[in-house]
Protein backbone atom coordinates (compact mmCIF):
# COMPACT_ATOMS: atom_id res chain seq x y z
CA UNK A 1 0.00 0.00 0.00
CA UNK A 2 2.87 2.36 0.78
CA UNK A 3 3.96 1.99 -2.83
CA UNK A 4 0.65 3.45 -3.96
CA UNK A 5 0.26 6.26 -1.44
CA UNK A 6 3.85 7.09 -0.55
CA UNK A 7 5.03 7.37 -4.15
CA UNK A 8 2.04 9.28 -5.48
CA UNK A 9 4.35 11.75 -7.24
CA UNK A 10 5.71 8.99 -9.48
CA UNK A 11 2.16 7.87 -10.33
CA UNK A 12 1.36 11.42 -11.41
CA UNK A 13 4.54 11.54 -13.49
CA UNK A 14 3.69 8.28 -15.25
CA UNK A 15 0.11 9.36 -15.90
CA UNK A 16 1.14 12.70 -17.41
CA UNK A 17 3.92 11.11 -19.43
CA UNK A 18 1.59 8.54 -20.98
CA UNK A 19 -1.15 11.12 -21.56
CA UNK A 20 1.32 13.44 -23.30
CA UNK A 21 2.76 10.69 -25.49
CA UNK A 22 -0.72 9.49 -26.42
CA UNK A 23 -1.75 12.99 -27.50
CA UNK A 24 1.39 13.37 -29.63
CA UNK A 25 0.83 10.07 -31.39
CA UNK A 26 -2.94 9.95 -31.69
CA UNK A 27 -3.94 13.52 -32.46
CA UNK A 28 -3.98 14.62 -36.06
CA UNK A 29 -4.05 18.35 -35.41
CA UNK A 30 -0.54 19.80 -35.42
CA UNK A 31 -1.21 22.28 -32.61
CA UNK A 32 -2.65 19.56 -30.39
CA UNK A 33 0.51 17.53 -30.92
CA UNK A 34 2.50 20.45 -29.53
CA UNK A 35 0.18 20.56 -26.51
CA UNK A 36 0.81 16.85 -25.97
CA UNK A 37 4.54 17.40 -26.20
CA UNK A 38 4.26 20.09 -23.52
CA UNK A 39 2.31 17.77 -21.21
CA UNK A 40 4.99 15.12 -21.73
CA UNK A 41 7.75 17.58 -20.89
CA UNK A 42 5.82 18.82 -17.83
CA UNK A 43 5.77 15.29 -16.46
CA UNK A 44 9.57 15.24 -16.60
CA UNK A 45 9.76 18.54 -14.71
CA UNK A 46 7.56 17.08 -11.98
CA UNK A 47 9.78 13.98 -11.82
CA UNK A 48 12.89 16.07 -11.20
CA UNK A 49 11.36 18.51 -8.75
CA UNK A 50 9.47 15.99 -6.67
CA UNK A 51 12.68 14.02 -6.28
CA UNK A 52 14.45 17.14 -5.03
CA UNK A 53 12.19 17.54 -2.02
CA UNK A 54 13.85 16.74 1.29
CA UNK A 55 11.41 15.83 4.04
CA UNK A 56 11.25 18.77 6.45
CA UNK A 57 13.33 20.94 4.13
CA UNK A 58 12.32 24.39 3.02
CA UNK A 59 12.73 26.08 -0.34
CA UNK A 60 16.42 26.25 -1.37
CA UNK A 61 16.92 29.97 -0.67
CA UNK A 62 19.09 30.92 2.27
CA UNK A 63 17.04 32.39 5.16
CA UNK A 64 17.93 32.95 8.80
CA UNK A 65 17.07 30.20 11.22
CA UNK A 66 16.70 27.20 8.89
CA UNK A 67 19.35 24.59 8.31
CA UNK A 68 17.54 22.00 6.17
CA UNK A 69 16.86 22.90 2.54
CA UNK A 70 15.54 20.95 -0.42
CA UNK A 71 18.11 19.99 -3.03
CA UNK A 72 18.60 23.04 -5.29
CA UNK A 73 20.35 21.23 -8.16
CA UNK A 74 17.26 19.66 -9.78
CA UNK A 75 15.54 23.04 -9.56
CA UNK A 76 18.34 24.57 -11.61
CA UNK A 77 18.24 21.70 -14.10
CA UNK A 78 14.51 22.11 -14.58
CA UNK A 79 14.87 25.86 -15.05
CA UNK A 80 17.11 25.08 -18.00
CA UNK A 81 14.79 22.34 -19.22
CA UNK A 82 11.80 24.71 -19.07
CA UNK A 83 13.66 27.26 -21.19
CA UNK A 84 14.51 24.52 -23.68
CA UNK A 85 10.84 23.49 -23.69
CA UNK A 86 9.71 27.07 -24.30
CA UNK A 87 12.13 27.43 -27.19
CA UNK A 88 10.95 24.14 -28.69
CA UNK A 89 7.28 25.14 -28.36
CA UNK A 90 7.95 28.54 -29.92
CA UNK A 91 9.79 26.94 -32.84
CA UNK A 92 7.09 24.31 -33.31
CA UNK A 93 4.33 26.94 -33.31
CA UNK A 94 6.29 29.06 -35.79
CA UNK A 95 6.52 26.00 -38.07
CA UNK A 96 2.76 25.42 -37.70
CA UNK A 97 2.03 29.04 -38.65
CA UNK A 98 4.19 28.65 -41.78
CA UNK A 99 2.60 25.26 -42.58
CA UNK A 100 -0.82 26.86 -42.23
CA UNK A 101 0.02 29.62 -44.67
CA UNK A 102 1.52 27.10 -47.12
CA UNK A 103 -1.19 24.42 -46.94
CA UNK A 104 -4.21 26.33 -45.49
CA UNK A 105 -4.68 23.59 -42.94
CA UNK A 106 -3.21 22.29 -39.69
CA UNK A 107 -4.70 18.82 -39.90
CA UNK A 108 -2.19 16.06 -40.61
CA UNK A 109 -4.44 14.11 -43.00
CA UNK A 110 -5.45 17.17 -45.04
CA UNK A 111 -1.79 18.07 -45.51
CA UNK A 112 -0.97 14.50 -46.44
CA UNK A 113 -3.66 14.58 -49.14
CA UNK A 114 -2.13 17.65 -50.69
CA UNK A 115 1.47 16.67 -50.79
CA UNK A 116 2.10 13.16 -49.46
CA UNK A 117 4.03 14.78 -46.59
CA UNK A 118 3.63 13.14 -43.17
Amino acid at each position, binding site marked *: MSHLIGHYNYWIVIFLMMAGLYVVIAQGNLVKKIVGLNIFQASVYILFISMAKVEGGTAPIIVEGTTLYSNPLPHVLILTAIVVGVATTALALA*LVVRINSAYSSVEEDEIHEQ*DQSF
Partner: protein
Amino acid sequence: MINEHLPVLQVLVPLLAAPLCLLFHERRFAWSISLALSLVALVIAALLLQHSLADGVISYELGGWSMHWGIEYRVDIVNAFVLLVVTTIASVVLLFARQSVLAELYRARIPLFYAIYMLCLGGLLGVTISGDVFNLFVFMEISALSSYTLIALSQERRALTSAYQYLIMGTIGATFLLIGIGLMYIMTGTLNMRDLADALPAVTGNRTIVTAFAFIVVGISIKLALVPLHLWLPNAYAYAPSAVTAFIASTATKVAFYVLLRFLFTIFGVGFSFSNMLLGGIFLVLGLLAIFAGSTAAIFQDNIKRMLAYSSIAQIGFMTLGISFVTSTGVGAAILHLFNHAIMKAALFLALGSVFYRLGSVNIRDMQGIGREMPWTMTAFVIGGLSLVGVPLTVGFISKWYLVLGALEQGWWPVAAAVLLASLLTLVYIWRVIDAAWLQAPAAPRQDALTEAPPGMLLPLWGLILANLYFGIDTSLSVSVAMQAADWLLGGGG
Protein backbone atom coordinates in the same frame (compact mmCIF):
# COMPACT_ATOMS: atom_id res chain seq x y z
CA MET B 1 47.70 30.42 -22.08
CA ILE B 2 45.47 29.61 -25.04
CA ASN B 3 46.56 25.99 -24.72
CA GLU B 4 44.94 25.50 -21.33
CA HIS B 5 41.63 26.96 -22.47
CA LEU B 6 41.35 25.04 -25.76
CA PRO B 7 38.38 22.88 -24.68
CA VAL B 8 36.16 25.83 -23.87
CA LEU B 9 37.36 27.80 -26.90
CA GLN B 10 36.34 24.86 -29.09
CA VAL B 11 32.70 25.50 -28.21
CA LEU B 12 32.87 29.25 -27.65
CA VAL B 13 34.43 30.24 -30.99
CA PRO B 14 31.63 28.90 -33.25
CA LEU B 15 28.95 30.07 -30.81
CA LEU B 16 30.32 33.62 -30.96
CA ALA B 17 29.73 33.72 -34.70
CA ALA B 18 25.96 33.55 -34.16
CA PRO B 19 25.42 36.87 -32.31
CA LEU B 20 27.99 38.54 -34.58
CA CYS B 21 26.06 37.45 -37.69
CA LEU B 22 22.86 38.68 -36.03
CA LEU B 23 24.46 42.00 -35.09
CA PHE B 24 25.79 42.91 -38.50
CA HIS B 25 23.13 41.13 -40.53
CA GLU B 26 24.93 41.37 -43.85
CA ARG B 27 25.35 38.40 -46.19
CA ARG B 28 29.03 38.59 -47.12
CA PHE B 29 30.15 39.52 -43.61
CA ALA B 30 28.10 36.68 -42.13
CA TRP B 31 29.74 34.15 -44.49
CA SER B 32 33.26 35.48 -43.88
CA ILE B 33 33.02 35.54 -40.10
CA SER B 34 31.38 32.09 -40.06
CA LEU B 35 34.08 30.61 -42.28
CA ALA B 36 36.87 32.27 -40.30
CA LEU B 37 35.59 31.09 -36.92
CA SER B 38 34.82 27.63 -38.27
CA LEU B 39 38.41 27.31 -39.51
CA VAL B 40 39.66 28.45 -36.08
CA ALA B 41 37.48 25.73 -34.53
CA LEU B 42 39.06 23.23 -36.97
CA VAL B 43 42.56 24.23 -35.84
CA ILE B 44 41.52 23.91 -32.19
CA ALA B 45 40.09 20.43 -32.85
CA ALA B 46 43.32 19.35 -34.56
CA LEU B 47 45.36 20.66 -31.60
CA LEU B 48 43.07 18.86 -29.15
CA LEU B 49 43.50 15.58 -31.06
CA GLN B 50 47.25 16.03 -31.03
CA HIS B 51 47.25 16.76 -27.26
CA SER B 52 44.99 13.84 -26.42
CA LEU B 53 47.12 11.43 -28.47
CA ALA B 54 50.14 12.64 -26.54
CA ASP B 55 48.83 13.31 -23.03
CA GLY B 56 45.74 11.14 -22.60
CA VAL B 57 42.67 12.79 -21.12
CA ILE B 58 42.40 16.59 -21.05
CA SER B 59 40.08 17.90 -18.37
CA TYR B 60 38.78 21.47 -18.12
CA GLU B 61 36.65 22.69 -15.24
CA LEU B 62 34.20 25.46 -16.11
CA GLY B 63 33.88 28.24 -13.60
CA GLY B 64 36.74 26.90 -11.54
CA TRP B 65 34.39 24.46 -9.81
CA SER B 66 35.85 21.02 -9.09
CA MET B 67 34.62 18.32 -11.46
CA HIS B 68 32.48 16.70 -8.79
CA TRP B 69 30.36 19.79 -8.34
CA GLY B 70 30.56 21.70 -11.58
CA ILE B 71 30.56 21.18 -15.32
CA GLU B 72 33.66 19.57 -16.77
CA TYR B 73 34.80 19.34 -20.38
CA ARG B 74 36.72 16.13 -20.99
CA VAL B 75 38.67 15.42 -24.16
CA ASP B 76 39.94 11.94 -24.81
CA ILE B 77 40.83 10.29 -28.08
CA VAL B 78 37.23 9.36 -29.00
CA ASN B 79 35.98 12.93 -28.50
CA ALA B 80 38.87 14.54 -30.23
CA PHE B 81 38.38 12.37 -33.33
CA VAL B 82 34.68 13.28 -33.56
CA LEU B 83 35.49 16.97 -32.96
CA LEU B 84 37.90 16.91 -35.87
CA VAL B 85 35.34 15.24 -38.16
CA VAL B 86 32.59 17.72 -37.27
CA THR B 87 34.72 20.85 -37.66
CA THR B 88 36.21 19.65 -40.97
CA ILE B 89 32.82 18.90 -42.51
CA ALA B 90 31.41 22.21 -41.21
CA SER B 91 34.23 24.25 -42.77
CA VAL B 92 34.07 22.45 -46.13
CA VAL B 93 30.28 22.81 -46.35
CA LEU B 94 30.57 26.52 -45.45
CA LEU B 95 32.92 27.00 -48.39
CA PHE B 96 30.32 25.33 -50.59
CA ALA B 97 27.39 27.18 -49.04
CA ARG B 98 28.38 30.65 -50.20
CA GLN B 99 26.92 30.16 -53.67
CA SER B 100 24.61 27.27 -52.90
CA VAL B 101 22.37 29.17 -50.47
CA LEU B 102 21.92 32.02 -52.96
CA ALA B 103 19.99 29.59 -55.15
CA GLU B 104 18.00 27.86 -52.44
CA LEU B 105 17.13 30.36 -49.70
CA TYR B 106 15.31 33.69 -49.68
CA ARG B 107 18.02 36.34 -49.85
CA ALA B 108 16.87 38.21 -46.74
CA ARG B 109 17.28 35.07 -44.64
CA ILE B 110 20.88 34.31 -45.57
CA PRO B 111 22.63 36.11 -42.65
CA LEU B 112 20.28 34.29 -40.29
CA PHE B 113 21.17 31.02 -42.04
CA TYR B 114 24.82 31.51 -41.13
CA ALA B 115 23.94 32.47 -37.55
CA ILE B 116 21.91 29.32 -37.05
CA TYR B 117 24.50 27.17 -38.87
CA MET B 118 27.19 28.31 -36.43
CA LEU B 119 24.81 27.75 -33.50
CA CYS B 120 24.28 24.21 -34.74
CA LEU B 121 28.02 23.69 -35.07
CA GLY B 122 28.62 25.06 -31.56
CA GLY B 123 25.90 22.80 -30.20
CA LEU B 124 27.35 19.69 -31.86
CA LEU B 125 30.84 20.51 -30.59
CA GLY B 126 29.41 21.05 -27.09
CA VAL B 127 27.71 17.64 -27.14
CA THR B 128 30.97 16.01 -28.14
CA ILE B 129 33.23 17.71 -25.66
CA SER B 130 30.99 17.79 -22.58
CA GLY B 131 31.85 15.65 -19.60
CA ASP B 132 28.60 16.34 -17.78
CA VAL B 133 25.42 14.53 -18.85
CA PHE B 134 23.03 17.43 -18.33
CA ASN B 135 25.31 19.82 -20.21
CA LEU B 136 25.28 17.21 -23.00
CA PHE B 137 21.46 17.32 -23.03
CA VAL B 138 21.41 21.13 -23.23
CA PHE B 139 23.89 21.26 -26.12
CA MET B 140 22.03 18.45 -27.85
CA GLU B 141 18.87 20.52 -27.72
CA ILE B 142 20.75 23.60 -28.99
CA SER B 143 22.01 21.65 -32.00
CA ALA B 144 18.63 19.99 -32.52
CA LEU B 145 16.63 23.23 -32.47
CA SER B 146 19.09 24.84 -34.87
CA SER B 147 18.88 21.89 -37.24
CA TYR B 148 15.07 22.02 -37.28
CA THR B 149 15.35 25.70 -38.22
CA LEU B 150 18.01 25.03 -40.87
CA ILE B 151 15.78 22.44 -42.52
CA ALA B 152 12.78 24.77 -42.47
CA LEU B 153 14.68 27.60 -44.18
CA SER B 154 14.16 25.95 -47.54
CA GLN B 155 11.76 27.50 -50.05
CA GLU B 156 10.15 24.10 -50.56
CA ARG B 157 6.98 23.77 -48.51
CA ARG B 158 7.49 20.09 -47.75
CA ALA B 159 10.56 21.14 -45.78
CA LEU B 160 8.22 22.66 -43.20
CA THR B 161 6.35 19.44 -42.51
CA SER B 162 9.64 17.52 -42.49
CA ALA B 163 11.10 19.93 -39.94
CA TYR B 164 7.94 19.63 -37.84
CA GLN B 165 8.07 15.82 -37.87
CA TYR B 166 11.77 15.90 -37.00
CA LEU B 167 11.00 18.36 -34.18
CA ILE B 168 8.35 16.16 -32.61
CA MET B 169 10.43 12.99 -32.79
CA GLY B 170 13.65 14.72 -31.80
CA THR B 171 12.08 16.38 -28.76
CA ILE B 172 10.61 13.08 -27.59
CA GLY B 173 14.08 11.54 -27.96
CA ALA B 174 15.75 14.33 -26.02
CA THR B 175 13.11 14.18 -23.29
CA PHE B 176 13.64 10.43 -22.95
CA LEU B 177 17.33 11.20 -22.51
CA LEU B 178 16.40 13.74 -19.81
CA ILE B 179 14.25 11.17 -18.00
CA GLY B 180 17.15 8.72 -18.06
CA ILE B 181 19.50 11.38 -16.69
CA GLY B 182 17.01 12.17 -13.91
CA LEU B 183 16.65 8.53 -12.92
CA MET B 184 20.43 8.13 -12.85
CA TYR B 185 20.73 11.26 -10.71
CA ILE B 186 18.19 9.83 -8.25
CA MET B 187 20.34 6.73 -7.80
CA THR B 188 23.83 8.22 -7.79
CA GLY B 189 23.50 11.91 -6.92
CA THR B 190 25.93 13.07 -9.58
CA LEU B 191 25.82 14.33 -13.17
CA ASN B 192 29.51 14.09 -14.03
CA MET B 193 30.29 11.23 -16.45
CA ARG B 194 33.43 10.07 -14.64
CA ASP B 195 31.63 10.04 -11.26
CA LEU B 196 28.64 8.23 -12.75
CA ALA B 197 30.96 5.57 -14.17
CA ASP B 198 32.46 5.09 -10.69
CA ALA B 199 29.15 5.13 -8.84
CA LEU B 200 27.02 2.97 -11.16
CA PRO B 201 28.62 -0.46 -10.53
CA ALA B 202 27.44 -0.29 -6.93
CA VAL B 203 23.76 0.07 -7.96
CA THR B 204 23.76 -2.01 -11.14
CA GLY B 205 20.96 -4.48 -10.45
CA ASN B 206 18.53 -1.77 -9.43
CA ARG B 207 15.35 -1.43 -11.51
CA THR B 208 15.77 2.35 -11.65
CA ILE B 209 19.11 1.98 -13.41
CA VAL B 210 17.66 -0.55 -15.85
CA THR B 211 14.82 1.89 -16.65
CA ALA B 212 17.28 4.76 -17.00
CA PHE B 213 19.36 2.67 -19.40
CA ALA B 214 16.31 1.83 -21.49
CA PHE B 215 15.16 5.44 -21.70
CA ILE B 216 18.63 6.67 -22.60
CA VAL B 217 19.23 4.08 -25.32
CA VAL B 218 15.81 4.67 -26.91
CA GLY B 219 16.23 8.45 -26.68
CA ILE B 220 19.62 8.40 -28.36
CA SER B 221 18.40 5.90 -30.97
CA ILE B 222 15.72 8.39 -32.02
CA LYS B 223 18.41 11.02 -32.57
CA LEU B 224 20.60 8.43 -34.29
CA ALA B 225 17.77 7.36 -36.64
CA LEU B 226 18.28 3.72 -35.79
CA VAL B 227 15.59 1.57 -37.40
CA PRO B 228 12.67 1.52 -36.40
CA LEU B 229 13.01 5.09 -35.09
CA HIS B 230 14.29 6.50 -38.38
CA LEU B 231 11.04 7.91 -39.80
CA TRP B 232 12.12 11.54 -39.59
CA LEU B 233 15.30 11.12 -41.60
CA PRO B 234 14.26 10.59 -45.25
CA ASN B 235 12.00 13.65 -45.39
CA ALA B 236 14.35 15.86 -43.40
CA TYR B 237 17.31 15.13 -45.67
CA ALA B 238 15.33 15.21 -48.92
CA TYR B 239 13.67 18.62 -48.55
CA ALA B 240 16.29 20.62 -46.67
CA PRO B 241 18.57 23.00 -48.59
CA SER B 242 21.56 21.15 -50.11
CA ALA B 243 24.23 22.65 -47.90
CA VAL B 244 22.11 21.90 -44.83
CA THR B 245 21.63 18.28 -45.86
CA ALA B 246 25.35 17.87 -46.45
CA PHE B 247 26.12 19.33 -43.03
CA ILE B 248 23.48 17.53 -40.99
CA ALA B 249 23.86 14.17 -42.75
CA SER B 250 27.55 14.14 -41.94
CA THR B 251 27.46 15.44 -38.39
CA ALA B 252 24.20 15.14 -36.46
CA THR B 253 23.84 11.36 -36.57
CA LYS B 254 27.59 10.89 -36.04
CA VAL B 255 27.49 12.98 -32.86
CA ALA B 256 24.44 11.00 -31.68
CA PHE B 257 26.45 7.82 -32.33
CA TYR B 258 29.30 9.24 -30.26
CA VAL B 259 26.83 9.93 -27.39
CA LEU B 260 25.67 6.31 -27.63
CA LEU B 261 29.28 5.10 -27.42
CA ARG B 262 29.92 7.36 -24.43
CA PHE B 263 26.87 6.13 -22.50
CA LEU B 264 27.27 2.44 -23.35
CA PHE B 265 31.01 2.04 -22.88
CA THR B 266 32.14 4.74 -20.48
CA ILE B 267 29.20 5.40 -18.19
CA PHE B 268 27.33 2.11 -18.01
CA GLY B 269 30.28 -0.12 -18.85
CA VAL B 270 30.64 -2.97 -21.34
CA GLY B 271 29.49 -5.67 -18.93
CA PHE B 272 26.22 -4.02 -17.96
CA SER B 273 25.31 -2.74 -21.41
CA PHE B 274 26.00 -5.85 -23.44
CA SER B 275 25.73 -8.76 -21.07
CA ASN B 276 23.07 -7.76 -18.54
CA MET B 277 20.96 -5.77 -20.93
CA LEU B 278 21.49 -8.00 -23.99
CA LEU B 279 22.18 -4.97 -26.12
CA GLY B 280 24.64 -6.93 -28.27
CA GLY B 281 21.90 -9.11 -29.66
CA ILE B 282 19.43 -6.25 -30.04
CA PHE B 283 21.92 -4.07 -31.94
CA LEU B 284 22.91 -6.99 -34.15
CA VAL B 285 19.29 -7.50 -35.24
CA LEU B 286 18.52 -3.78 -35.59
CA GLY B 287 21.77 -3.17 -37.45
CA LEU B 288 21.06 -5.90 -40.01
CA LEU B 289 17.47 -4.69 -40.33
CA ALA B 290 18.67 -1.13 -40.94
CA ILE B 291 21.21 -2.24 -43.51
CA PHE B 292 18.73 -4.22 -45.57
CA ALA B 293 15.66 -2.01 -45.13
CA GLY B 294 17.67 1.12 -45.88
CA SER B 295 19.48 -0.22 -48.92
CA THR B 296 16.34 -1.82 -50.39
CA ALA B 297 14.23 1.31 -49.88
CA ALA B 298 16.97 3.37 -51.52
CA ILE B 299 16.74 1.36 -54.72
CA PHE B 300 13.15 2.43 -55.35
CA GLN B 301 13.53 6.19 -54.83
CA ASP B 302 13.34 8.69 -57.67
CA ASN B 303 14.46 11.67 -55.63
CA ILE B 304 18.22 11.15 -55.35
CA LYS B 305 18.49 13.02 -52.05
CA ARG B 306 15.88 10.69 -50.61
CA MET B 307 17.81 7.75 -51.99
CA LEU B 308 20.96 8.92 -50.22
CA ALA B 309 18.93 9.50 -47.04
CA TYR B 310 17.83 5.85 -47.01
CA SER B 311 21.42 4.97 -47.74
CA SER B 312 22.40 6.90 -44.59
CA ILE B 313 19.96 4.80 -42.59
CA ALA B 314 21.76 1.72 -43.92
CA GLN B 315 25.17 3.15 -43.03
CA ILE B 316 23.99 3.85 -39.47
CA GLY B 317 23.04 0.17 -39.44
CA PHE B 318 26.65 -0.68 -40.32
CA MET B 319 27.92 1.39 -37.39
CA THR B 320 25.48 -0.24 -34.99
CA LEU B 321 26.47 -3.67 -36.29
CA GLY B 322 30.07 -2.79 -35.52
CA ILE B 323 29.44 -2.03 -31.87
CA SER B 324 27.28 -5.13 -31.45
CA PHE B 325 30.44 -7.25 -31.90
CA VAL B 326 31.89 -5.72 -28.68
CA THR B 327 35.41 -6.45 -29.88
CA SER B 328 38.26 -4.12 -30.65
CA THR B 329 37.87 -4.71 -34.39
CA GLY B 330 34.11 -4.25 -34.31
CA VAL B 331 34.03 -1.03 -32.31
CA GLY B 332 37.05 0.24 -34.24
CA ALA B 333 35.24 -0.45 -37.51
CA ALA B 334 32.23 1.50 -36.22
CA ILE B 335 34.33 4.53 -35.23
CA LEU B 336 36.22 4.33 -38.53
CA HIS B 337 32.92 4.20 -40.41
CA LEU B 338 31.82 7.31 -38.51
CA PHE B 339 34.70 9.21 -40.13
CA ASN B 340 34.45 7.52 -43.53
CA HIS B 341 30.70 7.89 -43.88
CA ALA B 342 30.92 11.57 -42.93
CA ILE B 343 33.28 12.35 -45.80
CA MET B 344 31.47 10.05 -48.25
CA LYS B 345 27.99 11.41 -47.59
CA ALA B 346 29.13 15.03 -47.44
CA ALA B 347 30.77 14.63 -50.85
CA LEU B 348 27.68 12.96 -52.34
CA PHE B 349 25.30 15.59 -51.00
CA LEU B 350 27.59 18.41 -52.15
CA ALA B 351 27.59 16.86 -55.64
CA LEU B 352 23.78 16.81 -55.55
CA GLY B 353 23.86 20.40 -54.35
CA SER B 354 25.85 21.40 -57.41
CA VAL B 355 23.36 19.57 -59.62
CA PHE B 356 20.46 21.34 -57.91
CA TYR B 357 22.24 24.68 -58.33
CA ARG B 358 22.33 24.29 -62.09
CA LEU B 359 19.33 22.08 -62.74
CA GLY B 360 16.82 23.05 -60.04
CA SER B 361 15.88 19.44 -59.37
CA VAL B 362 17.36 16.21 -58.04
CA ASN B 363 14.84 13.86 -59.58
CA ILE B 364 16.46 10.98 -61.47
CA ARG B 365 14.38 11.63 -64.57
CA ASP B 366 15.53 15.26 -64.74
CA MET B 367 19.12 14.15 -64.25
CA GLN B 368 19.24 12.00 -67.39
CA GLY B 369 22.23 12.81 -69.58
CA ILE B 370 23.65 15.25 -67.09
CA GLY B 371 27.00 13.45 -67.02
CA ARG B 372 28.07 14.98 -70.32
CA GLU B 373 27.05 18.51 -69.32
CA MET B 374 28.43 18.51 -65.77
CA PRO B 375 31.36 16.07 -65.99
CA TRP B 376 33.29 17.23 -62.93
CA THR B 377 30.27 17.08 -60.65
CA MET B 378 29.07 13.70 -61.84
CA THR B 379 32.56 12.17 -61.76
CA ALA B 380 32.74 13.27 -58.14
CA PHE B 381 29.37 11.62 -57.57
CA VAL B 382 30.59 8.41 -59.20
CA ILE B 383 33.71 8.26 -57.03
CA GLY B 384 31.65 9.01 -53.92
CA GLY B 385 29.16 6.34 -54.94
CA LEU B 386 31.92 3.77 -55.46
CA SER B 387 33.19 4.68 -52.01
CA LEU B 388 29.71 4.02 -50.62
CA VAL B 389 29.69 0.59 -52.31
CA GLY B 390 33.08 -0.23 -50.83
CA VAL B 391 35.35 -0.46 -53.86
CA PRO B 392 39.06 -0.88 -52.93
CA LEU B 393 41.16 2.33 -52.92
CA THR B 394 38.27 4.29 -51.35
CA VAL B 395 37.45 4.89 -47.69
CA GLY B 396 34.24 2.87 -47.89
CA PHE B 397 36.28 -0.26 -48.55
CA ILE B 398 38.37 0.23 -45.40
CA SER B 399 35.45 0.33 -42.95
CA LYS B 400 33.61 -2.55 -44.67
CA TRP B 401 36.87 -4.54 -44.56
CA TYR B 402 37.21 -4.10 -40.81
CA LEU B 403 33.51 -4.85 -40.30
CA VAL B 404 33.79 -8.15 -42.21
CA LEU B 405 37.01 -8.90 -40.33
CA GLY B 406 35.23 -8.28 -37.02
CA ALA B 407 32.37 -10.60 -38.02
CA LEU B 408 34.78 -13.35 -39.11
CA GLU B 409 36.70 -13.04 -35.82
CA GLN B 410 33.50 -13.97 -34.00
CA GLY B 411 32.86 -16.77 -36.45
CA TRP B 412 29.64 -15.12 -37.65
CA TRP B 413 29.81 -16.01 -41.35
CA PRO B 414 26.17 -15.00 -42.08
CA VAL B 415 26.83 -11.47 -40.83
CA ALA B 416 29.89 -11.10 -43.04
CA ALA B 417 27.85 -12.37 -45.98
CA ALA B 418 25.12 -9.85 -45.12
CA VAL B 419 27.60 -6.98 -45.23
CA LEU B 420 28.79 -8.06 -48.67
CA LEU B 421 25.21 -8.48 -49.90
CA ALA B 422 24.40 -4.97 -48.69
CA SER B 423 27.33 -3.66 -50.74
CA LEU B 424 25.74 -5.27 -53.80
CA LEU B 425 22.44 -3.53 -53.01
CA THR B 426 24.34 -0.25 -52.71
CA LEU B 427 25.84 -0.90 -56.13
CA VAL B 428 22.31 -1.28 -57.56
CA TYR B 429 21.12 2.16 -56.53
CA ILE B 430 24.41 3.89 -57.32
CA TRP B 431 24.33 2.26 -60.75
CA ARG B 432 20.81 3.65 -61.30
CA VAL B 433 22.20 7.16 -60.95
CA ILE B 434 25.30 6.49 -63.07
CA ASP B 435 23.11 4.92 -65.75
CA ALA B 436 20.75 7.89 -65.80
CA ALA B 437 23.55 10.46 -65.80
CA TRP B 438 25.88 9.01 -68.41
CA LEU B 439 24.06 6.39 -70.45
CA GLN B 440 20.73 8.06 -71.14
CA ALA B 441 19.78 11.10 -73.17
CA PRO B 442 17.96 14.04 -71.52
CA ALA B 443 14.25 13.32 -71.25
CA ALA B 444 13.26 16.70 -72.67
CA PRO B 445 15.53 19.17 -74.45
CA ARG B 446 16.81 21.68 -71.98
CA GLN B 447 15.75 25.31 -72.17
CA ASP B 448 19.19 26.69 -71.42
CA ALA B 449 22.39 24.75 -71.81
CA LEU B 450 23.66 23.37 -68.54
CA THR B 451 27.13 24.43 -67.54
CA GLU B 452 29.40 22.97 -64.96
CA ALA B 453 28.97 24.11 -61.37
CA PRO B 454 31.02 27.17 -60.36
CA PRO B 455 34.54 26.58 -59.01
CA GLY B 456 33.49 27.85 -55.58
CA MET B 457 31.32 24.76 -55.30
CA LEU B 458 33.53 22.32 -57.19
CA LEU B 459 36.62 22.94 -55.03
CA PRO B 460 35.14 21.84 -51.67
CA LEU B 461 33.45 18.91 -53.43
CA TRP B 462 36.66 17.67 -54.99
CA GLY B 463 38.53 18.34 -51.75
CA LEU B 464 36.25 15.84 -50.05
CA ILE B 465 36.55 13.36 -52.94
CA LEU B 466 40.33 13.53 -52.79
CA ALA B 467 40.12 12.98 -49.03
CA ASN B 468 37.97 9.90 -49.81
CA LEU B 469 40.70 8.55 -52.05
CA TYR B 470 43.63 9.60 -49.86
CA PHE B 471 42.26 8.01 -46.70
CA GLY B 472 41.34 4.94 -48.72
CA ILE B 473 44.90 4.49 -49.91
CA ASP B 474 46.91 5.69 -46.89
CA THR B 475 44.85 4.35 -44.01
CA SER B 476 47.45 4.60 -41.27
CA LEU B 477 46.17 7.76 -39.61
CA SER B 478 42.43 7.07 -39.53
CA VAL B 479 42.72 3.37 -38.71
CA SER B 480 45.25 3.86 -35.92
CA VAL B 481 43.19 6.59 -34.26
CA ALA B 482 39.96 4.59 -34.60
CA MET B 483 41.51 1.40 -33.19
CA GLN B 484 43.13 3.31 -30.33
CA ALA B 485 39.77 4.91 -29.57
CA ALA B 486 38.05 1.49 -29.62
CA ASP B 487 40.62 -0.01 -27.23
CA TRP B 488 40.25 3.00 -24.96
CA LEU B 489 36.45 2.64 -24.87
CA LEU B 490 36.49 -1.12 -24.34
CA GLY B 491 38.97 -0.65 -21.52
CA GLY B 492 36.44 1.55 -19.75
CA GLY B 493 38.47 4.70 -20.14
CA GLY B 494 37.19 8.26 -20.46
